[in-house]
């Protein structure tokens, strides 16, 4: 019996820490896709850039937390530039144009990092105390993954508080639920969009940096994992903050459990599950009110 509880705890912790990474990276994408219905395949590039920046700084002996701050701010700034120059002309164009342009951004980002840092995985040097296992009562567990869970929980709590209780959050929810009406009552939805885009890219960078031990930075990162991030967004329901949290956790736990029990089939069972789920609920698990 204790044996099973031990396995269950391992899968749960591994799954939750993986899910936290997915959540931190994808949450910005959820909100921006909910706000403007822009399909953004380039989101993974910002997470990749965050991972590379953290790797670059820590490999040169700079403090890990300084590296994390840089890995948040620089992708945020890059996100702002991308939004202003490339994404803004896309609002009125169809999905096809959005898909194509953002894939173009992925190509550029991929070749930029392979040009600057080489074609191989580029590790982040985590501080020693994170690489050691930690005693959590009934067993020892990876300090790194505990760190991810704590950071993820803090970010989720802060975001939840901001979205539920601040004026900014109220505006955001209103604009996601009914953008036209929000504009009609005088909200500046484009500014709201730019702000969330920048914050979302910053968070993606942070997620890419602290998640580098699980999703390692490499040139193919942006294309390889973007499907995963989009799955979180679409399964959770575009624009749904809670939905993306639930979806990220579910995805993390299901994927981890799959890797433990059905190593051979895990990868395609995950996508097959997504496929079935989307046929069953095309709008996602917890769509925002107006969509549901």
């Amino acid at each position, binding site marked *: 019996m204790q044996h099973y509880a031990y396995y269950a705890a391992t899968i749960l912790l591994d799954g939750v820490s993986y899910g936290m990474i997915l959540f931190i990276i994808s949450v910005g994408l959820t909100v921006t896709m909910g706000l403007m219905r822009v399909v953004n395949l380039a989101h993974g590039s910002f997470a990749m850039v965050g991972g590379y920046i953290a790797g670059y700084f820590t490999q040169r002996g700079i403090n890990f937390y300084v590296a994390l701050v840089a890995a948040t701010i620089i992708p945020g700034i890059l996100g702002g530039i991308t939004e202003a120059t490339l994404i803004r002309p896309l609002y009125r164009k169809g999905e096809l144009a959005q898909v*194509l342009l953002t894939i173009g951004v992925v190509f550029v980002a991929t070749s930029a990092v392979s040009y600057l840092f080489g074609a191989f995985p580029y590790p982040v040097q985590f501080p020693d105390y994170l690489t050691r296992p930690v005693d959590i009562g009934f067993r020892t567990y990876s300090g790194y993954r505990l760190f991810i869970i704590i950071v993820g929980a803090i970010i989720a709590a802060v975001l939840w508080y901001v979205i539920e209780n601040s004026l900014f959050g109220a505006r955001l929810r209103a604009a996601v639920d009914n953008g036209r009406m929000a504009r009609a009552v005088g909200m500046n939805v484009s500014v709201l969009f730019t702000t969330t885009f920048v914050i979302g890219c910053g968070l993606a960078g942070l997620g890419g940096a602290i998640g580098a031990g699980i999703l390692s930075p490499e040139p193919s990162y942006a*294309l390889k994992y973007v499907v995963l991030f989009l799955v979180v967004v679409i399964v959770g329901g575009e624009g749904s903050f809670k939905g993306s949290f639930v979806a990220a956790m579910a995805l993390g736990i299901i994927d981890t459990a799959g890797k433990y029990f059905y190593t051979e089939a895990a990868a395609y069972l995950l996508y097959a599950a997504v*496929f079935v789920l989307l046929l069953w609920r095309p709008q996602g698990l917890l769509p925002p009110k107006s969509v549901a």
Partner: protein
Amino acid sequence: MAAMTDGKSDTKGLSPLALVGHALPWIIAIVYYFMAQGYLTFGTNIMIWMLFAISLDLVLGYAGIVTLGHSAFFGIGAYAAGIFSIHVSGDPILGHLVAIVLSGIFGLISGAMILHTSGVTFLMLTLAIVSVVFEWANKAKWLTGGDDGLQGMRVDPLFGIWPFNIFGTTAYLYTLAVLFIWFLIAWRLVQSPFGRSLDGIRQNPRRMRAIGTPVWWRLVAIYAISGAMAGSAGALSAHSTRFVGLETLSLLTAGIVTVVLILGGTRRLYGAFVGAIVYFVVQDWTAKQNPHLSEAIIGVMLIATVLFLEGGLMDLGRVGRRLLGRKPTDAA
């Protein structure tokens, strides 16, 4: 747009000038065969991608189905042809037909399951399908060779006469013939009432449904036809290289074929020709300069096309004429 509405005149009779225009790509392909004997493999590859891009044009350009999973068909066709040649028979025509049928059936079934959705959900479903197929092929080492790719393909001479040699002469002419046949089919298709109805569905599915068009069936049909065509391109790639790699099923492959099509221009079939040539020549050239740069250049080309040249390179003439202040004549 006007090129679409006056499409009837294309079928009634062509002016001599238009006839020369339509013959031009094929003349170039034949001249290339005699002039560039050392680069036939390169030419074959370009024609395979032309065929693949035309198949995407049918669904994405004409029917307005925004998919990112088209590499699933290409890969299934390639693996079907490859596996057939190893385990059943090395006859290229037979293997090719098997690949076409299998990828067509896959298109029919997957299309029937997902084509009632639209927009981002549809896009995600296509991504999920291509991911499932990719990961499955990656794990099914006993059948596909997994990461190492499919090796040991046996390709018999074409019609028992012409062997697929290292110079690629047979592969080149064979690919050219297959491309020509598919092009004629696609050409007839987009001008038929069926093709016209796809045009209508792209522009306004609701109105088409209201006037009695079976929208879902039409979409499933074109999805299956396009899948069969993409599978045919995959089979050509398998037979001409005697190898099938896992990357035929990857998202990158789906991205590249979309780039090829968009660069050239959608909804004109010839766009695929222009796009494939430009893409592979540029890619070949930049890869020689700096391997890291080739992807960046493709990315920049894609971004520029979307922002400034919505109709693709085939639209350059029209854009130029507009800039010079002349009325566009739509002589597509």
